[in-house]
C-alpha cells in the first residue's frame, strides 16, 4: 500500500491498465468485452480511490510525480504528477468510467469489442490529460482522446451521428491545432532564454514572455480550451454531440471531457501566461462569455423538446458558472469552479444515464413522449428528481456548494456579473423542473409508457454511487475542498505575483519540497531505472 501510493508508479499504472484492458477487449470474445472493460475500470477505480487518502493535504507540489526522458533531444519528458486539482479530476474519471461502462451493457448491442476498447483508450487519454506535466505529453493525450470519442459518437450514435461526430471533431480540433503552434512558440521562447529545449511544464512556466505575445499565446491556448469547455459561442457542437452520442458517450463527454477545457485553463493557460490571464480584456471577455453562457444556455435549454439536448445545454450553463468562478481568481471562485466541475460530472452524468435508461425502453428522447413515469418507474422518478435538484443547485446537494462558492468568489471581484450570473439559478429551475415534470409527473397518457419496467438492479447500482456522491459532496464538501485548497492558493498566488512585471522573473515554487520537477538542465530527480518504461 505504502509502497505503491508513495511511489511514482501509481499514476503510470492508472494510465497503463486501461490500455491493457483495451487490448484484452479486442482480443477477447464479443460477449466478454463488456466484462473485461468493467473489470478493468473497476480495477483502476480501486487503485485510484486510495489516492484520496494518501494525498498529502496542504501542499501545492505535484505528488506521485515521475519525470523520465522520452524524446531527449527536444527535452520532451514523460512527466506526470498530480496536485489537488488533478486528484479530483482523476477520481472523477475513474468513478465515471465504470459507471458509464456498466451503463452501456444493454445500450450497446453491436461491435461491443470495439466499443469497450474505445472507451478504455479514451480513459487513458483523459487520465493522461489530467496528469501530464509535459506539454507534448499533454497534447498527445489531448488529441488521442478525440479519436475514440469520434468513433463512439459516429459508430454507436443516433440518426445524425455522422454530422455530430464530424462537428465535434472539427470544432475540437480547430482549437487544439492553434494551441500546438502556441506550445511550439513557448518552447522556442524558453529555448531562447535558457538555451535548452524543453517541453516540461515546470521549465516552461518560468519563461518570461512579453505581455503582447502572452496575449496571443493565451488566445491560442484559450481557444482550444474554450471550445472544449465550451464557452459561448463555441458551444454548438455540444448539443449535437450529446444528443447523438450513445449514453456512455454523453456521460463521458459531459462528465469528463468538458472538464479538460477548464483544466487546461487552470493548469496551462493561466499559469503560463499570467499577465494575459489577468489582463482586463481577457478576463472581461471570458467572464462575459461565461455569463452569457449561463443565461443564454439556460434560455435555450428551457425550450428544447429533446431531453438530451436540454441536458446538453445545461452543461453549457454549468460550465459558464465554472468559467466565471475560475476567472474570479480567488480562493472561493477557483475552488468552487473545481468542485463544480466534479459536481457537474456527477449530476449531468447521472442525468444522461437516466435519459439513456428510458431511451433504451422507449427509443425516444423527446420529452413529450413521456409523462407520468413516476407511476410505473418510482425509483427512476426518485433518482431523476434528486439528480435534477443537484443540477439546479439545491442547497444540500453538491451543486449548491459549487455554485455558491463560485458566486461568492465572483462577487468579490465583479459584483455585477455575479449578480447576473445568479439569475442563472432562477433559469435553472425554469428549464429543469418542466423537464422533470413532463417526464415523470403529469398524467400517464401514452399507452406505451404504461408497461415500462422500473430500473433493474444493474441500473440502480449504477446510480447509487452518483446519488450518494451528490449528497455527500453537498453535505460534507470540506474534504474535497481541503485537497484542492493548497493547489488553488498556489495557483492564484502564482498567477497574481507573476503578472507583476517586477517579479516576472520569479519562478513559481512548484513542488519545491520533494520530487522537484526541476528544469531539465539540472535534474534533481534521481533518474529512475531505465527499464521502467519510457512513454505510455
Amino acid at each position, binding site marked *: 500500500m505504502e509502497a505503491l501510493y508513495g511511489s511514482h508508479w501509481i499514476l503510470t499504472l492508472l494510465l497503463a491498465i486501461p490500455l491493457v484492458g483495451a487490448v484484452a477487449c479486442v482480443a477477447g470474445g464479443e460477449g466478454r468485452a463488456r466484462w473485461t472493460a468493467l473489470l478493468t475500470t473497476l480495477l483502476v477505480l480501486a487503485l485510484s480511490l486510495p489516492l484520496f487518502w494518501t494525498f498529502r493535504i496542504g501542499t501545492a507540489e505535484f505528488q506521485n510525480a515521475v519525470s523520465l526522458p522520452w524524446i531527449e533531444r527536444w527535452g520532451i519528458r514523460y512527466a506526470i504528477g498530480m496536485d489537488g486539482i488533478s486528484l479530483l479530476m482523476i477520481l472523477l474519471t475513474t468513478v465515471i468510467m465504470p459507471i458509464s461502462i456498466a451503463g452501456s451493457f444493454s445500450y450497446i448491442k453491436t461491435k461491443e469489442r470495439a466499443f469497450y476498447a474505445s472507451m478504455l483508450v479514451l480513459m487513458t487519454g483523459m487520465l493522461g490529460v489530467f496528469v501530464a506535466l509535459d506539454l507534448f505529453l499533454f497534447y498527445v493525450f489531448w488529441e488521442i482522446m478525440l479519436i475514440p470519442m469520434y468513433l463512439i459518437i459516429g459508430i454507436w450514435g443516433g440518426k445524425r451521428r455522422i454530422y455530430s461526430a464530424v462537428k465535434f471533431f472539427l470544432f475540437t480540433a480547430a482549437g487544439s491545432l492553434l494551441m500546438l503552434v502556441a506550445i511550439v512558440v513557448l518552447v522556442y521562447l524558453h529555448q531562447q532564454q535558457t538555451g535548452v529545449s524543453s517541453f516540461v511544464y515546470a521549465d516552461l512556466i518560468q519563461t518570461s514572455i512579453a505581455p503582447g505575445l502572452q496575449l496571443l499565446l493565451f488566445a491560442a491556448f484559450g481557444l482550444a480550451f474554450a471550445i472544449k469547455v465550451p464557452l459561448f459561442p463555441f458551444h454548438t457542437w455540444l448539443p449535437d454531440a450529446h444528443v447523438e452520442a450513445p449514453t456512455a458517450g454523453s456521460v463521458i463527454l459531459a462528465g469528463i471531457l468538458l472538464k479538460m477545457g477548464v483544466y487546461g485553463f487552470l493548469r496551462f493557460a493561466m499559469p503560463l501566461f499570467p499577465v494575459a490571464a489577468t489582463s482586463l480584456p481577457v478576463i472581461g471577455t471570458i467572464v462575459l462569455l461565461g455569463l452569457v453562457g449561463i443565461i443564454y444556455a439556460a434560455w435555450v435549454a428551457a425550450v428544447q423538446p429533446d431531453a438530451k439536448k436540454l441536458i446538453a445545454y445545461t452543461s453549457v450553463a454549468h460550465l459558464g458558472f465554472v468559467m466565471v468562478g475560475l476567472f474570479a481568481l480567488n480562493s472561493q471562485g477557483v475552488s468552487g469552479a473545481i468542485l463544480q466541475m466534479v459536481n457537474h460530472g456527477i449530476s449531468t452524468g447521472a442525468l444522461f444515464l437516466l435519459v439513456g435508461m428510458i431511451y433504451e425502453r422507449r427509443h425516444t428522447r423527446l420529452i413529450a413522449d413521456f409523462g407520468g413515469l413516476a407511476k410505473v418507474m418510482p425509483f427512476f422518478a426518485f433518482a431523476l428528481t434528486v439528480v435534477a*435538484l443537484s443540477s439546479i443547485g439545491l442547497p444540500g446537494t453538491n451543486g*449548491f456548494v459549487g455554485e455558491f462558492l463560485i458566486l461568492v468568489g465572483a462577487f468579490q471581484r465583479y459584483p455585477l456579473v455575479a449578480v447576473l450570473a*445568479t439569475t442563472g439559478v432562477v433559469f435553472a*429551475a425554469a428549464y429543469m*423542473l418542466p423537464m422533470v415534470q413532463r417526464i415523470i409527473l*403529469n398524467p400517464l397518457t401514452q399507452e406505451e409508457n404504461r408497461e415500462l419496467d422500473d430500473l433493474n438492479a444493474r441500473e440502480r447500482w449504477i446510480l447509487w454511487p452518483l446519488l450518494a456522491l451528490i449528497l455527500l459532496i453537498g453535505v460534507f464538501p470540506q474534504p474535497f475542498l481541503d485537497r484542492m485548497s493548497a493547489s488553488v492558493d498556489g495557483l492564484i498566488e502564482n498567477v497574481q505575483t507573476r503578472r507583476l512585471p517586477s517579479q516576472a522573473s520569479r519562478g513559481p515554487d512548484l513542488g519545491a519540497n520533494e520530487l522537484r520537477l526541476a528544469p531539465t538542465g539540472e535534474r534533481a530527480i534521481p533518474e529512475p531505472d531505465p527499464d521502467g518504461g519510457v512513454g505510455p
Partner: protein
Amino acid sequence: MNEAFQPILPGLILGLPLLGAVLNGIGAFAWRDSKTIPSLVGPLTVLAAFAIGVANLLAMRAVMPHEPALVPLWTWMRSGELDISVMLMFDQLSLLMTLVVTGVGGIIHVYSVGYMRDDPGYSRYFAYLNLFIFFMLILVLSANYPLMFVGWEGVGLCSYLLIGFWYENREYSDAGKKAFIVNRIGDFGFLVAMFLLFSTFGTLDMPAIFREAPERLLADGALVTAITLFLFLGCVGKSAQIPLYVWLPDAMAGPTPVSALIHAATMVTAGVYLVARSGVLFALAPVSQAVVASVGAATALLAATIALQQFDIKKVLAYSTISQLGYMFVAVGIGAYTAGIFHLMTHAFFKALLFLGAGAVIHAVHDAWAATGAHGDPNDMRNHGGLRRLMPVTGTTMWIGTLAIAGVIPFAGFFSKDEIIWQAGVRGYAVLWALALVVALLTAGYMTRLMVMTFHGENRSGEGAGSHLHEVGAVMWMPLAILAALSVVGGWVQIPDALPLPHVDLLHSWLEPVFEPALLVAAGVAGQHGEASHTAPLGGGEALWAALSTTLAVIVILLVYRGLAARRYRPAAEAAEPTGFRAVLYHKWYVDELYDRLVVRPLLALWRGCWRIVDDRIIDGTVNGLAGVARLAGWTGSQLQSGRVATYLLVFMIGALIILGSLAF
C-alpha cells in the same frame, strides 16, 4: 454573564424528523402498502422533537441568556476567508419558532393520518412532510445565512413535492413547478444579499454580522439598504408578497394538511422570520423598512379584496394567508418585531385550524361524492352549504378560527392584530394604520362569507350526498379541537397594559434579548425623527381603538352573516360567472393573465428565438457557411483540374512568369 444555557439534544431535534423522512422514504419503496409504520414514524418523530423543544424552552427560561447558544456540528465549506459551518443557533426566537413548527407540525401530522389514509402515496407523503419539518427546523435554527438558505430552499423543495403530490394531475404539478420557480426568484435575492454580506463582513455567521453591523454599515446607507432589500426579495418570494404572491393560491393543489402546515402556518412565514431575525440590518435601513411595510400593507389589501370573491374554500384561505402575511410584514417593517412574531404565532394556530377544518369539509364532501358517484369540485363553496349540522365539530372549531382571524376579543387574533395596528399607529405610519384597519374589516367580511357559504344555508352537495356527509373521525377532529383551543388562548401570552384585562407580557420579555440590539439600533437611527407618539393618527388611545376595531369586526360579521345567509347560492356547475367588479376580483385582478402576457410568453418567445436563430442560424450558420465556402473553393479549384494538359501547362507558365517576373520587374 451568567448564561449557561446548553441546548438539550440539539442534534436530535433535527435528527428525528430527518430519520422519519428517511424511514418513510424507504417505506415508500420497500413497504408500499403498510400504513402502520408511516402512521407511527411520521407524527411521533415530530412530536418527539416538539417535546425536546419544550424541554429546551424550559431550560432556557431558567437561564434567559442574552446571547444565543451556538452548536457547531461540522465544517461545511471553507475556502479562503469564507468559513461556513453547519452550526445551530438556539435563542429565544429560534426556540419559539421550533415549537411552533414542531407543535403545529405535529398536530397536522396526526391529522394527516386520517386525512391521507386512503392515499396510495401514504408513506411518501409522510416522508415529504417529515422532510419539511427537518428543513424548516434548519431554517429557524441555523446560525448562518447559508445554512438558513439550506432550510429556505429545502422547505421550498418539500412544498414543491407536496403541491405536486398528486402528480398525475397536470394542474397540480404545474402549481408545484410554479411555486418552485417563483420562490427561486426570491432566492436569487437571498443569494445576492449573502454575497453582499460576505463581501462586507467577511463572514456569514449571524451573530458576528449582527454584532458588527452597526459599526461596519453606515445607517441608511446604500449598502445596507441593498442588503436588506435583496433579503426582502427572498422574503417576498417565500412569503408570497406582491409581486411574487401568485404561487401561493395555486399551491392549494396539495393535500389540505400540507396547505395548513406549509402554506399557512410555517413555511410562508419564514420571510417574516428572516426579517425579524435580521432586525439589526433592517433597523439600519429605514428605506427598506418602509418598503417592507408598504409591500406588506399593499399585499394585505390586495389579497383581502381577492378573497372576497373566491369560491374555492382553500383559495379564500390562501388569499387570507397572503393578506395576514402582509400584516406581519407591516409589523416587522415598522420595527415592531415582537408584534410580527406574535401574529405569526397566532396565525399559525388559527390558520392551521381553518385549513384543517376546510380539509375536513373537503374530505367529507369527497367521501360523500365517492359514495354517490357525483362529480365536481369538493373545494367549491357553492357545492357546500349547511354543513353546520352535519359536521358540528368542524363547524364550531372553524367559527372559533374565524373569530380569531377577524380579531374579535378575546380570541388570539385580536391581540396580535391589534398590536400591529396600534404599533403602526403610534409609530406615525398613518396610511399603514388605516390600511390595516380596513383589511381587518375585510378579513372579517370574507371569513364570514366563507363560513356562511360552507356551513349555513341549504346543503348544495347534490342529491343524496347529504346523507353521506358526516363528521370526520377523531384523528382528524382532535387536532381541530387542539388548534381551536390554541386559537383562543394563544393570544393571551401578550395582553397590553391599556386593556382592562390582566396585563401579560410573556412574549415581549421572552423575545426581548433577541430584538434588543435591533431596537437599540432603531432607536439610534430614529433619534433624529423624534419620539413615537402615544396616540393613533386620529387621536385616541390603544384601548379605544382596540375596542373600536373589535366592535367593527363584530358588526361586519353580523352584517355579512345577515346579508349572505338569506341569499341562495347555486351549485358551482350551475352558477353563472361573476360580472362587473366582482369578475375583476374573481379573476384576481387578472394578475396571472398579466404575468402570462407580459412575462412568460415574451420570455418563451425570446428563448425560442435564441435557439432557432442565434444557435441554429447565426452560430451554426457561420460554421456551416465557412465549411460551405471551403467546399466551394475546393470545387472551384477542382474545376481547373479539367484533365486538359494545356490548362496545366498554362497555369504552370503563369506561375513561372509570376515568379520570374517578381525578379525582373
